């Protein structure tokens, strides 16, 4: 079982990371999710995105989340890379990947990880447009997504 959980302080190359992660395991299948900085917010071009975090909690929380996923699905590998800092449109924010013998495990674990990274990890996001910086508030959809996993310990 490969576990690779990182807080990235600078730009990273998702294609390179995926190729490396995939080559390291004998998984039947590997699922991934890549989140990128969008280029528009409510029709305003996005100039920059910043993710602030709280170091004493952020990476430990990500590692605990990874272990929860490993307890609940049968995985051959798990990858989480999450950026912090200031990014530009098109930059990768988060890359999650799960390898498994059976694809249902890989799909569900990736989905679980993303819902929790969005709503339960220690990141605060703000976006800069021509109107200046604006903090992004949590969406109701995020809470709904999270509620789907109430049965997972």
């Amino acid at each position, binding site marked *: 079982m490969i576990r690779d959980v990182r807080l990235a302080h600078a730009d990273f190359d998702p294609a390179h990371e995926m190729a490396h992660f995939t080559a390291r395991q004998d998984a039947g299948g590997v699922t991934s999710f890549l989140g990128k900085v969008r280029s528009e917010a409510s029709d305003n071009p996005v100039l920059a995105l910043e993710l*602030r975090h709280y170091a004493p909690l952020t990476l430990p929380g990500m590692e605990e989340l990874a272990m929860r996923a490993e307890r609940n699905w049968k995985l051959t590998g798990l990858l989480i890379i999450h950026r912090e800092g200031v990014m530009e449109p098109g930059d990768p924010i988060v890359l999650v990947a799960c390898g498994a013998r059976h694809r249902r495990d890989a799909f569900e674990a990736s989905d679980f990880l993303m819902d929790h990274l969005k709503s339960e990890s220690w990141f605060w996001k703000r976006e800069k447009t021509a109107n200046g910086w604006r*903090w992004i508030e949590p969406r109701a959809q995020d809470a709904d997504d999270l509620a789907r996993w109430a049965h997972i310990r």
Partner: protein
Amino acid sequence: MSLKLVFLGRLEDVAGHGEIALDIAGPLTLSEIAERLEPQLAVAISAANVRIALNGSLVSPGGWTAGNGDELAFLPPVSGG
């Protein structure tokens, strides 16, 4: 003696800084700390959805004091990923 306060997310805008060093005479409760802050900030950090971490561990709003050298972080609802 000094206590470090850390403000995340929109609380940073309310505080005007990401961090504040509070001169203290001794350990303080959350209420005593709030009394030392600008009213607007005191209200903001007391919201029910703001979590608190003392020296990197989450704590409930009561049952502790923070003293010299401690770090107290105020964490509003997250919006990551």
